[in-house]
């Protein structure tokens, strides 16, 4: 992976954080 790797890492990290964060929020609300 070459030029702009930090942007690609940022995009996939943001996606993972948002999706996992939403799953956690669902789990917390289910309690």
């Amino acid at each position, binding site marked *: *992976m*070459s*030029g*702009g*790797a930090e*942007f*690609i890492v*940022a*995009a*996939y990290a*943001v*996606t993972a954080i*948002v*999706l996992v964060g*939403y*799953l956690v929020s*669902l789990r917390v*609300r*289910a309690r």
Partner: protein
Amino acid sequence: MITTYPQAVRGPRVRPYLAGASILAGAVALFMALVWSPRDANQGDLVRIMYVHVPAAWLAYLSFVVVFLASVAWLWGKWPLADAIAVASAEIGVMFTGLALVLGSIWAKPTWGVWWTWEPRLITTAVMFAMYAGYLLLRSLSTDFERRATRSAVVGAIAVLNVPIVHLSVTWMNALHQLPSVLRPGPPALDGRMLTTLIVCVVAMTIFYAYCMVVRVGLERARSTRP
């Protein structure tokens, strides 16, 4: 009865299958997006941001179309399940719209040179995000179930107009954002392997959406039956 709450939250039996399918599809999509798909002739590896940005935008569209259908169903038959589907899809749609905006911004910086610019696709997407965030806020204004469901169904049925406006905004005036590459008249304007990867990523994200919907609708129904 409080004993009905955990059962309702668990939801139907489809849930574990959706969870498994979501993990499997997500792993395949991630491999294809980061390894299998070729680099773009102009953008290089930056094109890989497309594989998360476009599915997020697609899910935003799909979520709000589902809100529309569920809103019409509520207005038609006053089925509580329709209201639960509408609020669940609106919440998930707001998440995906926000994600599409942030990912678009991350992609814009190295390709356009700016994090944000006031051009039609970005403005209309931001307006769509604000309208559905408003839809969720509207639901907190009334504690009367039927009144709240009817008010929000009217908004949910009208706000779907945002979807074609956002999608077609790039064709109405000279925009910085590129024109539709897949959902357009004629064949997709994408390399074969890129298109395959994009389709797999869209399918994986849609399965994730379906899983979230099953859980979120279960939560909403449990909330409405809680004493």
